[in-house]
Structure formats: C-alpha cells, structure tokens
C-alpha cells in the first residue's frame, strides 16, 4: 500500500497554515483526510504525482475550509457549555452534594450567628471568587483571535502548549454565574435598602454568603471540567504540548 511520506505530510500541514487554519486539532483531521485521499488516488493510478492527487483531494472540499472551522468552533462552545453545566449540576448530586451542602451550610451558620463579622468575611470571599471565575477562564482559554500559550500545571511537571487548539479557544460559559453574582452584588444595596426587619443584618449576611458559596461551586466545577479537557488534549494531541520536567 502506498504511504504518504513525512515530507508530504509536512506540505499538507503547511497548506492548512497558509489557508488560515491554525488550530492543530482542526489540522489533524483535515491532513488525515487529504492524505488518505492522496494515498488512495496514487494506489489506483501509480503514475499520478503527489501534486495532482493533492489538488484533486482539495477540490472535494470545494473551498469550505473556513465554514468547517466556524461550524466546529460553534459546536465546541455548545459541547463545553453542556459539559460545564453537567459538572456544576454534579455538585448538587450524590456524593458531591455532601461537600456542597457542608460548604454552604457552614457558611450560612456563620452568617446567621455572626452577622456583623460574617458580612465582611463574605464580601472578602465574594470579590476574589468572582474575579477568579471571570478572569481565570480568559487567561486559560485566551481570546478568539489572539491565542496564548499557557503553562499547564499537572503534578510537578508542566506542559507548555506550543500549538493553538480550537478546543481551548472558546468563550467560556460558566462565567455567567459570576456575572449574575456581580449584578446581584451591585444591586444588593438597593435590594436591602427598604428591608424593615429586626433581622436585616442576618438576611444581608446570609445573602452574601449564599452568593459567595454558589460562585465558589461554579469555580470548582469550571476547574474540574478544565482539568478533564486538559487531560483529553494532552492524551489526544501530544504534539501540541511540550513537557518540561522540574
């Protein structure tokens, strides 16, 4: 069976780059498709040159490469949104719900019994938890056009991402939790302004602690899903990473 050479594979990867397909995970699928087609054509016609077979293989895509990338990016956002929400929901199901209720429970007990201190403690927790969930995904995933090469902690060794991957290049979705939190936080003074109650302080501290708790669970869920995605990427696209041993 005719097998395409390493040099020819390199040429197909270069073609993808020239065509504006910079994401390695997209390139892999296209390169294999084009290479398989070239191999088959040359098997059927031994005289056929690589260039001619490559041209024929490309024609079958009828210049729909851009559409393919756009469509894949859209599907990845959908897939990741689903995975993150599933992960978030798992914190409210057995066995993780024990940890969740313990976390929120202890916070609420503190908020109830020590409202004057609890309010400030909750506020100091709430602010960084919001920042983490809003900024951290952006640092990790990078922007759509301007990808970054993050250092990924996996145990002591570190993987440095050396190729852009579309699976990392997305708008993160769990951040909506923090955004809702931020809006509620901003409007909370208006919300509590008119409350006439002996327990006003307790209600306010319970609200802030609850908000901080939900934000933190959102962050834990995001982190768990991110680790899962990293393991998938390192396993399936090892060429996109470099291992640095410390």
């Amino acid at each position, binding site marked *: 069976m005719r*097998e*395409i*050479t*390493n040099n020819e*594979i390199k040429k197909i990867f270069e073609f993808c780059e020239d065509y504006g397909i910079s994401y390695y995970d997209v390139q*892999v*699928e296209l*390169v*294999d*498709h084009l*290479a*398989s*087609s070239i191999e*088959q054509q040359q098997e059927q016609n031994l005289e056929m040159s690589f260039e001619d077979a490559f041209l024929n293989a490309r024609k*079958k*895509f*009828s210049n*729909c490469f851009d*559409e*393919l990338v756009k*469509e*894949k990016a859209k*599907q*990845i956002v*959908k*897939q990741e949104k*689903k995975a993150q929400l599933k992960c978030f929901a798992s914190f409210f199901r057995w066995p993780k719900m024990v940890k969740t209720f313990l976390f929120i429970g202890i916070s609420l007990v503190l908020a109830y019994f020590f409202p004057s201190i609890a309010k400030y403690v909750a506020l100091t927790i709430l602010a960084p938890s919001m920042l983490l969930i809003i900024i951290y995904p952006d640092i990790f995933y990078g922007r759509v056009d301007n990808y970054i090469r993050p250092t990924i902690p996996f145990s002591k060794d570190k993987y440095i991402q050396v190729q852009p991957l579309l699976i990392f290049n997305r708008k993160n979705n769990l951040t909506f939790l923090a955004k809702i939190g931020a809006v509620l936080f901003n409007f909370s003074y208006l919300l509590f302004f008119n409350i006439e109650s002996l327990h006003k302080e307790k209600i306010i501290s319970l609200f802030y602690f609850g908000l901080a708790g939900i934000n933190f669970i959102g962050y834990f869920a995001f982190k768990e899903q991110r680790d899962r995605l990293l393991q998938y990427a390192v*396993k*399936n*696209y090892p*060429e996109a990473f470099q291992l640095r041993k410390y």
Partner: protein
Amino acid sequence: MNKNSLYKGCLEPLLLKLLNDNGRMYGYEITQKVKELTIGELQITEGALYPLLHRLEADGVLTTEVENIGNRPRKYYKLTEEGEKQKSHALEELENFMRTMQLLLKPQTI
C-alpha cells in the same frame, strides 16, 4: 431534482448505523464506505460530513479518540451509549419515512 438533496435528511441515521456496524471510523473511511455500499450512488461530501460529525460529537452522540497511524495522527469517531439509543430511534424514523414515501408513490404495494 438533485438526488443529494433527497439523501441529505438520511445522512444522520446512515452515519449512526455505519458507526454501529463498524465500531469506530475516521472521516475519509466513512465517505469511502458509503460510496462502496451504495455502489457510488451516494457520495457524502466533506462539507456535509464533518459539520454533521462535529454536531453529533457536541450533542454527546459520538465520542472521539486520536491515534497515531504511521506518520500522522488520525481522529476516530464512535458511538456513545446515548448514540446507540439514538441510532435505533433514528433508524426507526427512517423506516417510517420510507414506508410513508412508498405509500405515496406505490399505494398498491403496501
């Protein structure tokens, strides 16, 4: 009428059946298998196949694994548990559709 537009709606159940019968397959293999099984009558275009594969992967119907074959990586698709359930449902729908079409075109044969 372009026959490809007739086949378009059947692509998903056919793809699910192919993956169910063959375990795991890669993109190019799918196009060739369909061509072979239909004796060249149905040719899945790359522009139709990959968006469908990616959509089914995002919906949790398919899962993927990448393996190195000689000098390049290859991405394989296979059905998830959810995909197996969906396959039976999709084939049932397709059979119903074919029965209805036959009913419309050749009422005496039913």
